[in-house]
């Protein structure tokens, strides 16, 4: 009478024998012995027919398992022992699987996301078509304020909202600042808002549609050194270990104090070159969140403070070593010669 133990020991013996056999011809012989029409497996299956139905199914499974284990083992061994030509040309071109190209903007966004998520930032996304309130008014830029001039705003044709004003295409990701305060309600906030922005300009260094990433940190006791630490960290991670940051005075309506942020030039590592002149390159703006902006987001500026920065993805991409793309309009051109490089 066939037993489970018999089947298992048969399987183990077979596997041991296979592993000790080296010649392909011998392995072929083993295959005939075990798996051939008159082989041992079929012999076992024949024995199954004499068993009672209950036993038949459990032992049948064991035989099946033995069969597939022996088959796999033989296949592996054959693969390992056969095809060993005496000469291999590793210098010849390989058969490449076709592979596509991730857009450089996506690559940069992925990298920026990873960098800021490491230090606890939450990636969010806010409307690309937004009310004047979030894009300007809540950011301490009332109607007709000269600070709006530089933003080259694109307006949507349509009626004004009674409270929130005109509908516009976001000129910057800063519209996420008050929206994030409204979402979170009570700090801490560490926001990373990455999105499409639009301005009425198109030339080799500007595109009418572009991308920005915006950082916003709000909590108790947030200070200028926290901004500096975050900038240094980003510079090292994104541009390289030797890259430093510096901040210089500037003016934005929605931050006080406001800064212009420079990083060490990646072409000359800060020595000064034809491209940067001073050893530094300007990347964008930053500042300590203006109390009026916190108030607009219903956060008490007496208790909380924060910093914010917002820069162009295209800008930081171009400053990567080796990526001095002279005409960024190429990014949005569906030019395959360009895209296939990435």
């Amino acid at each position: 009478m066939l037993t489970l133990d018999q089947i298992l020991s048969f399987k183990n013996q077979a596997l041991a024998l296979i592993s000790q056999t080296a010649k392909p011809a011998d392995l072929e012989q083993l295959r005939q012995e075990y798996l051939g029409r008159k082989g041992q497996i079929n012999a076992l299956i024949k024995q199954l027919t004499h068993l009672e139905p209950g036993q038949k199914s459990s032992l049948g499974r064991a035989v099946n398992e033995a069969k597939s284990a022996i088959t796999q083992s033989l296949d592996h061994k054959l693969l390992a022992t056969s095809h060993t030509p005496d000469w291999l040309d590793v210098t010849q071109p390989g058969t490449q699987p076709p592979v596509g190209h991730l857009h450089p903007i996506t690559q940069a966004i992925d990298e920026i996301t990873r960098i800021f998520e490491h230090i606890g930032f939450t990636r969010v996304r806010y409307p690309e078509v937004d009310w004047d309130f979030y894009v300007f008014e809540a950011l301490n830029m009332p109607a007709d304020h000269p600070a709006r001039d530089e933003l080259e705003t694109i307006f949507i044709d349509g009626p004004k909202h009674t409270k929130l004003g005109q509908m516009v295409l976001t000129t910057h990701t800063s519209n996420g600042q008050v929206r994030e305060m409204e979402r979170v309600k009570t700090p801490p906030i560490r926001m990373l808002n990455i999105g499409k922005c639009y301005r009425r300009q198109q030339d080799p260094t500007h595109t009418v549609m572009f991308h920005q990433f915006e950082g916003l940190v709000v909590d108790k006791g947030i200070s200028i050194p926290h901004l500096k630490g975050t900038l240094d960290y980003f510079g090292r991670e994104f541009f390289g270990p030797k890259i430093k940051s510096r901040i210089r005075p500037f003016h934005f309506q929605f931050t006080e104090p406001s800064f212009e942020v420079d990083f060490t030039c990646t072409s000359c590592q800060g020595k000064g070159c034809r491209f940067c002149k001073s050893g530094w390159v300007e990347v964008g703006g930053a500042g300590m969140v203006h109390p009026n902006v916190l108030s607009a987001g219903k956060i008490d500026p007496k208790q909380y403070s924060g910093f914010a920065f917002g820069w162009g993805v295209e800008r930081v991409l171009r400053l990567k070593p080796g990526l001095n793309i002279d005409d960024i309009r190429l990014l949005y051109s569906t030019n395959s010669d360009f895209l296939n490089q990435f």
Partner: protein
Amino acid sequence: MNISISHSWLKEFLTTNASPEKIAECLSLCGPSVEELEKTKDDYLYHMEVTTNRVDMMGVLGIAREAAAILPQFGIKARLKNDLYPPARPIPAGKPFPLKVAVDQQLCPRFSAVVISNVTVKSAPQKISNYLEKSGIRSLNNVVDISNYLMRAYGQPVHTFDLDKIQAKMVLRLSKKGETITTLDGKRFTLPGNDIVIADAGNRLIDLCGIMGGLNSAVDNNTKNVLLFVQIYSPKHIRATSMTLGQRSEAAQIFEKQPDPELVMPVILKGIQLFKQLTGREQGSQIIDLYPQPPKSKNVFVPLQLIKDRLGVEVSIKKVNSILQSLGFKGFPQVTVPSWRANDVTIAEDIVEEVARIYGYHHLPGLIMATTIPTNYPATNLYLEQQIKHWLVGMDLTEIYTNSMISQKLAEASGYPLSAHLKIKNALSEDWQYLRRSLIPSHTQAFPAFEIANTYHPRPGHLPEEKLQLIISGFTDHLKLKGIVESLFRKLHISATFTPTEILVGKTQLGTIGRVASNVHIADLSVSALTNQSSLYPHYQALPTTAPIIEDMTFTLPPQTYLGPIMDTIKSVSPLIESVTLKDRYENNFTFTITYRNPKSQLTDHDVAPLRSKITSKLALG
């Protein structure tokens, strides 16, 4: 705003031994940004960017004041000289002012003027013209040069009229729509209305205030009597006129940023002095100065702790005091703001900025905040979007970005009426007039590509619904495209049904796949539906312990039979059918590979035979 000044002119207001390079470096770190230091023949030129809040730095004096505060922080001696504040007292008297004057004070909070008689218009002395020319201002004649000198040296725009060309009276008022004026540069403007203008007794407009003077009252080579004119205007009006007419003169750019009214008297006195030096002529009238409401001096309370908190370092009261004093502020923690900073410095944070920047941002440490990390994330699954992109790239697709703004032609090709699109009010180009509702018309490229981008669906009274779509395009072979979509679904662990019109999971529509032109195939999928229906991990199945029975069945089907439902029908015959795949097709003959398996016990041909005939009969019934 940009301003260029020469090193020699700066030294007129600043005592220091610092080199121009050092001055440029220190100013950029702590004050106005020196964008370029240009070496000229015998001088240096600072090309600077002045931020819009610091109109007080639109003159050499303001820059010198900054330098005098900043340089000592770098251990360099520097001292401000020839400061114009406060004005000399008493104000010199003179003959009665020859014109009647009526001024709307809302439009002109400070109106001052003085007559200089018997002037001879000729070229200006070398020193003045040198300063101007080196700083990029053309030297014309002594009268014009004086007003240009005053503006660049102190940042207060100044105008000069030919007194004898003005008829009896000056009325400063708002323009009426349609009134016309020809300005100094010969341009004729028909005014939109509500522009600040001056009319004379003949109701002729003689000045487009704050923008440019009128040609009819301009100083020329025959001018004898000059009216020196120094004012402050309502910034909003100047800005509106300047923007509407597109006349962005330096004067307009300064006036719209509200320069210091306290500067008016010192500048007019300096002007009188320059006329005396350059033309030898005294003032020919009293100084008229209509200044009914001088602003009160402003105080801001700043707790020392706030400064320490924001700077993140210990700062002494002594240090804070010395920094603030060097910039013209008085007292601490109750800080009196100097008149030239009255509009810019209004809250404690503004004072923090002054202390911080002069203290030096480069002296502050950098550290990542040690506060609580927020964990209340929004629900959007951005990670999966990233995964989708990477998977598609692995399947030989290239990612492209196309513009959200589209032409009328593309909007009309979207399947939505043109009127149901959001329209751009001030389109930069005909190519960017509407916000797209579909990505399909934008994808005209000839290679397999994909894009994840928003579509914009208007909702009356609300912001549009921004729907994120995944489009896979550039295929001429439907089956290749379909295969990619199926593979993507496999990676996302989505089992979807493809009906002739849509792709479904249960009742949720994932999107569509189809032909948009005779040979152009596109899949258009909703990213939120994909992410909602997907899971990162599969529902694990225990590994099979029984062997399957695999066999092929060939059927001849009528033309234009949808294959999906046929395969579903086969599959539905029995739970013992593990899978049905299409192996081969030849004309109307389709070979399916059918895998039978019972996970609990080994199937035999005996078990499969009835299933086989059931399949045949089901398909025969159609």
